[in-house]
């Protein structure tokens, strides 16, 4: 290679490496802050700030959802399926994909008694897409609202 080009290539390589290192260090320093939510184990260990607006994320524990028959209030347990649980209370409309065994991200405040008061609940889905018949075989079920939607879809052709 022409020495002049070699020199320019080295320069470009240094430019890129320098930027990559700088960005890498910045992201490393920000690491915790880039996470969208606190997982249940961090909340259980007391690493999440109390009485501040934060997000908590995890799975809705099977059999933990209790709906208030007279209002939109709902309580459920947020779990990492590894023994760390956070009780959540919420009043409002839940996304269609909300259901037991599904991932969610809730925005709200952690109270001193360890309960998370959510003001917004978002559903988190995974990258496993499945037709309904296969899902049934795999023992995975859709939440009630969504299943009703699929049933009408099937009936409609």
């Amino acid at each position, binding site marked *: 290679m022409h020495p002049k*080009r070699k020199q*320019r*290539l080295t*320069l*470009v390589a240094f*430019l*890129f490496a320098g*930027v*990559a290192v700088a*960005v890498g260090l910045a*992201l490393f320093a920000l*690491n915790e802050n*880039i*996470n*969208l*939510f606190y*997982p249940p184990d961090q909340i259980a260990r007391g690493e999440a700030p109390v009485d501040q607006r934060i997000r908590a*994320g995890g799975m809705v524990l099977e059999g933990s959802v209790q709906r208030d028959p007279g209002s939109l209030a709902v309580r459920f347990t947020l779990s990492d399926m590894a023994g760390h649980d956070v009780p959540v209370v919420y009043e409002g409309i*839940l*996304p*269609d*994909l*909300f259901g037991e065994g*599904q991932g969610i*991200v809730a925005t709200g405040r952690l109270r001193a008694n360890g309960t998370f008061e959510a003001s*917004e*609940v*978002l*559903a*988190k*889905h*995974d*990258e*496993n*897409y*499945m*037709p*309904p*018949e*296969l*899902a*049934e075989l795999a023992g*995975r*079920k*859709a*939440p009630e609202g*969504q299943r009703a*939607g*699929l049933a009408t*879809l099937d009936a409609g052709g």
Partner: protein
Amino acid sequence: MKVPAPLVRLWHRLGSPRWFFETTAPWLPWLLGFGVVLLGAGAFWGLALAPADYLQGNSFRIIYVHVPAAILAQSCYMLMGTCGVVLLVWRMKLADMVLEAAAPIGASFTALALVTGAVWGKPTWGTWWAWDARVTSMLILLFLYLGIIGLRQALARPEAAGRACAILAIVGLVNIPIIKYSVDWWLTLHQPSTFKLTEKPAMPPSMWIPLLLSVLGFYALFIWSVLQSTRVVVLERERRTAWVQNFAAEQGSKA
């Protein structure tokens, strides 16, 4: 390290915008044809034949636009970063032309990925937008594209503008692995990657084959539009040369 002779020859030919213009002309109808057929087949299969998702129902079908757009947005940026290196090191005119032509196309794919993602997010996540690592790094990619487009407009001397854009394109390459691995490195609302190089996709073939067709169709149409757009830049920048003037006269007499 010895580079094979045909590659060296190709490399030298790429130095000539005229060679590029004349060589790529017969490729265009093929690329357009492949693109339309593949994308048409992928879209029809994906929207009409593929089964609905057990959880998301029909809203999952937006994957057939969202994933290809997001893949192309990143591929286009990698192309531009490569052109940036070639321009800075070898001073190849054609690299600068591709850099100019590809920027608006890449910006469009990025915008398409963000918009379809928002439309998908509303019925599934329950929100149009989340400031998680994947969505935010994708937004930064859009700003990089817009920055490169703006930088070229802002600088009067074409040569200086080309080099400035090349530097910005190379610097922005850092963002590409961040987008790719954001869903693995951090906790995000966005789900992990649909296609991985080393694993089978986590869905049945009736769902991923149309997605693959759609991705290939997007690639063909992307290459087609970058070539078309680059050819326009070639004509514009080389307009004072004899071959462009001959070409223009020929086209004029045909019309």
